[in-house]
């Protein structure tokens, strides 16, 4: 079962993200899917997450580096490559190519993803785009 769960999550990266097959979202994500972190729900929520990345990085490409699965949970580490040709987090496009790492933790029930948590080192993305963090904080 864990191998099947890994394959299901792999389809998200291979088919939905890399092959741009939006239509497979319903096959991969449960109607009850939730991503509380970003307030996204259902297959539509999953698609909107992908759409946001595509808008900023139209050529985004995910490479799965490794997966660890146990029970109903699948962890996937991916390398994402893309060129920043659209607005990202309110920042104008830079035209720069960036590489970053993302980790997803997916819960799979009855062959559908029901819950997802994502961790991305966004600072690495910002630095590659030429941004930095300003020390505006005051004690």
């Amino acid at each position, binding site marked *: 079962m864990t191998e099947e769960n890994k394959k299901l999550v792999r389809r998200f990266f291979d088919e939905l993200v890399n092959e741009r097959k939006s239509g497979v979202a319903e096959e991969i994500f449960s109607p009850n899917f939730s991503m509380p972190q970003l307030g996204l729900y259902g297959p539509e929520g999953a698609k909107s997450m992908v759409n946001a990345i595509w808008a900023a990085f139209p050529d985004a490409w995910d490479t799965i580096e490794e997966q660890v699965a146990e029970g109903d949970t699948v962890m996937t580490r991916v390398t994402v490559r893309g060129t920043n040709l659209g607005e990202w*987090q309110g920042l104008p496009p830079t035209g720069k190519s960036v590489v970053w790492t993302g980790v997803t933790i997916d819960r799979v029930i009855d062959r559908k993803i029901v819950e997802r948590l994502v961790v991305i*080192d966004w600072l690495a993305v*910002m630095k590659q785009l030429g941004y930095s*963090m300003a020390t505006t*904080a005051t004690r």
Partner: protein
Amino acid sequence: MTIEENKDVVRRLFEEVVSNGELAVVDEIVASDFFWPQFGLRGPEGVKQWVRTFRAAFPDVHDTVEEQIAEGDMVMTRATVKGTNLGEWYGMPSTGKVAVFPAVGIDRLVDGKIVERFAIFDLAGVLRQLGHEVLASSTPTRTERTS
């Protein structure tokens, strides 16, 4: 070593080493040929160096292990990290603010010791919590918003 034993070893890194600052434990759970490609750190000393740096910035850091899954020689650990920023961090002055954030560690073990690891958290999100802002260094017409 079973996957449950491997999970316990990694749990000690989060709870005893990071949360409690028991650096001597590193010698028990990290292999002498350990390598951390992300930071180019090697051996138990490399891990101690990383812990010291983090604890200097967040002396009261506390990791709560939320979940672990394991398969073969790999262990994935998701933790909630909480700490007060009382020291310089990534070149930023301390803010005195508390940050709470999720972190994921991916550890590979051989004979009950960690030989390789990968760790990730949203550093930009943490810096925002501490009150720092994204700076558009190339253009002054930034329209940054926090998410």
